[in-house]
């Protein structure tokens, strides 16, 4: 197998595994902040116990997240050295900012969050929880900024070295094989790089996806206890926090999804055409709800709504969405291949497309799951409003709770397929329309070495994943300690509890 495929599979595999955990840290971080805030506000010890329980779940996800995250930082250099040389000047500052601002914040205050219950007062503990949550969000900011720069590069110019002196290349310079190792992207404007055309939309989308992952985990475990008739006070209160937070995140995510897709229309028309399987440019472009793309005959099969894609893309049902048959445009192709004839250019065009059917499927899985989660959470809110949510002896409620138990998988699958859409949709480029993925590899690393490390990571991650699920299940089976708080709580914490029974226990 060739180096490119192996290196891509390795990165995809390690980043997919990693990406199970950070969204949970970000989402659960928010949940912990909410729970501790309620505890400090009301003095209701139930929320203190909840915060402690979810902290333990948080610790489990955090540890694996950190361990699998270091791998990715190393892989830029080990597997993608040419890429690192090319983007180091631009990408590096975002990564350094992530380390200095986010990772230290997160891991430093994590010590207090996990081990500080008996060491510091309630207010300082709450502050630490906020800092951990803030740090988790901050790290998402910088890494998504860096990734968005790869999607929509901005605030840079290309530079080469002639006789030891840097020489600025004109905009639109086409990077060729001979340029690799000497030409690099150099930063012009830090803020233009940070606020490149896609970073805000994509960042919002990623963070909301992470919130959903955290919220649905809480909802799922709470629903499980309700069905089993265990830890009822804890489960009801957790359910309410989880549902409220999850509803906010899910509804906002629909809005954010729309913004993100409109950004893709604008910035990466090829990706948009691929995710919707559009080949022909026609007015009233239809939207395919689900189905498959036949890449040979360049057709898409499945139920369609005429004009919907045009409407979503342009707010105008008649304006055509440009299809793959016209993308990339002729002048772009001519620049890439100055010596090619018209017929050759037409033949070269598909080499600038991603794998259309794969991108189409990943995107549609994400959309279908997103809509399903929205329906589910709105139903749950309706049950809550009607007072049916905790009637666990009633069949419709039991069905709903069962669906909520399974819902934890939804955001996970949607997050993964969303990233697949984004990253596969960018191919064949690693830095969009600037550097090809095939050109970005390490020159000195051989296929066997990558295969060796790929197998190694596969075995280790399989083991870790099984252990993670095992420990998480055990933790859920064991459940929260109902009387956990009081017996070993220091005075400063105990003083916070209001023994008042009129306080709103969850009912």
């Amino acid at each position, binding site marked *: 197998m060739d180096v490119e495929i192996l290196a891509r599979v390795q990165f995809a595999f390690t980043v997919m595994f990693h990406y199970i955990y950070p969204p949970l840290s970000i989402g659960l971080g928010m949940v912990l902040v909410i729970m501790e805030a309620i505890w400090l506000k009301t003095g209701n010890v139930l929320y203190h116990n909840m915060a402690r329980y979810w902290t333990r779940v948080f610790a489990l996800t955090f540890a694996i997240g950190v361990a699998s995250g*270091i*791998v990715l930082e190393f892989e*830029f*250099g080990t597997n993608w050295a040419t890429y690192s040389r090319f983007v180091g000047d631009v990408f590096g500052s975002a990564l350094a900012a992530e380390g*200095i601002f986010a990772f230290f914040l997160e891991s430093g205050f994590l010590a207090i969050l996990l081990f500080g219950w008996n060491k510091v007062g309630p207010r300082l503990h709450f502050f630490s929880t906020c800092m951990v949550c803030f740090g988790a969000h901050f790290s998402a900011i910088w890494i998504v900024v860096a990734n968005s720069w790869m999607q929509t590069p901005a605030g840079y110019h290309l530079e080469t070295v002639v006789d030891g002196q840097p020489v600025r290349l004109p905009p639109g310079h086409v990077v060729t094989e001979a340029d690799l190792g000497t030409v690099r992207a150099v930063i012009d404007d830090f803020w233009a790089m940070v606020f490149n055309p896609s970073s805000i939309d994509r960042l919002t989308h990623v963070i909301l996806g992470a919130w959903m992952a955290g919220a649905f985990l809480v909802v799922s475990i709470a629903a499980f206890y309700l069905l089993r008739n265990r830890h009822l006070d804890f489960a009801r209160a957790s359910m309410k926090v989880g549902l409220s937070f999850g509803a906010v995140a899910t509804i906002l995510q629909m809005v954010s999804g729309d913004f993100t897709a409109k950004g893709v229309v604008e910035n990466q028309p090829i990706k948009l055409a691929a995710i919707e399987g559009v080949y022909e440019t026609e007015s009233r472009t239809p939207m395919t709800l689900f189905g498959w793309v036949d890449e040979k005959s360049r057709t898409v099969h499945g139920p369609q709504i005429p004009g919907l894609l045009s409407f979503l893309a342009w707010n105008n049902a008649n304006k055509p969405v440009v299809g793959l048959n016209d993308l990339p445009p002729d002048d772009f192709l001519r620049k890439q291949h100055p010596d090619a004839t018209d017929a050759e250019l037409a033949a070269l065009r598909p080499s600038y497309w991603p794998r259309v059917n794969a991108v189409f499927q990943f995107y549609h899985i994400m959309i279908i799951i997103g809509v399903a989660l929205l329906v589910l959470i709105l139903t749950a809110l309706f049950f809550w409003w009607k007072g049916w949510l905790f009637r666990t002896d009633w069949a419709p409620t039991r069905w709903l709770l069962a669906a909520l138990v399974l819902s934890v998988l939804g955001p996970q699958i949607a997050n993964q397929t969303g990233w697949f859409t984004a990253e596969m949709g960018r191919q064949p480029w690693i830095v969009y329309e600037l550097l090809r993925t095939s050109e970005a590899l390490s*020159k*000195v690393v051989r296929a066997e070495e990558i295969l060796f490390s790929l197998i190694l990571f596969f075995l280790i991650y399989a083991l870790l994943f099984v252990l993670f699920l095992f420990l998480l299940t055990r933790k859920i089976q064991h459940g929260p300690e109902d009387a956990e708080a009081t017996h070993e709580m220091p005075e400063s914490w105990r003083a916070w509890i209001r023994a008042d029974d009129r306080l709103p226990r969850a009912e």
Partner: protein
Amino acid sequence: MSLEVIWFILVGVLLTGYAVLDGFDLGVGALHLFVKKDEDRRMLLNAIGPVWDGNEVWLVTGGGALFAAFPEAYATVFSGFYIPFMLLLVSLIFRAVAIEFRSKEPWKWWRTMWDIAFACGSIVSALLIGVAMGNIVRGIPLDADHEFAGTFVGLLNPYALTMGVTTVALFAMHGAIYIVMKTEGELQQKVRRWVPTLIGVFIACYSIFNLYTFIDVPRIVDLVRERSYIFLVAALGILVVLNIPREFSRGREFNAFLCSCLGMALMMATFGLSYFPNIVYSSPNPENSLTIANAASTPKTLGIMLVIATIGVPVVFAYTASIYYIFRGKTKLTSHSY
């Protein structure tokens, strides 16, 4: 001082921070299996429990800073040291999850399994860090495009391995001193008795390494002759380490630990001073070396990052110090412990 020089120093500071901080928790890991009782092992894990995670971040940030400030060096070293770095990652992963997983279940086989993973992960990590460092000191073969031109087996040369073993000895010594500071009673007495031996082993390894350097890397000898202050820094490093037993005998455990930290920082300084302005020295063909001149990012990027570092690093120092302060004193096992 040019931005390149500042970043040479800053990357050095971050990596020194990593060596000093993660050094003691890797060292605790290296000694883990020598402590037999379950309660004592939990004590060791909890002594590093609240801080090991933050310590590892110094590596991530050091790597990130190298990527940002000297992308050429980052790309060359990381792709060149492919297999050793993959093994380093695996070791770091195992030891991280071992700390987290070990005490979650009471079964004996479970705990023993993770104890072994923790100890082996720590030792192998320390060894590989040392081997990488040894190769950098000695110089690695680079071609005209600054790509690594050596082999994996070539990286396992006796000189680099000597440095690897020295690093394990250094971290083990450092870890033992940390344990003495954080524990009490029988466990503390036991580890305290190891300290003189560990210091002895380290000094022996370090002397052999230095001797080997004088024979195998004549370039450094010439440099030290030229920059005689290096000799002073190196000697000061050794003196500080030799001071550790004296601090112990006077019951000043914290000072002993500080001496150990300072000793490591001085060793890193020795290395930095005798390496500047190279970042990756090429041997043979020194003309292909990566230096702060040909490996650095543009002054613009270095300037932006300096702003980031100027805002961020003091804050990091402040809360890292407060967290160590909050968790000061002897470790106690509670229901939140590992």
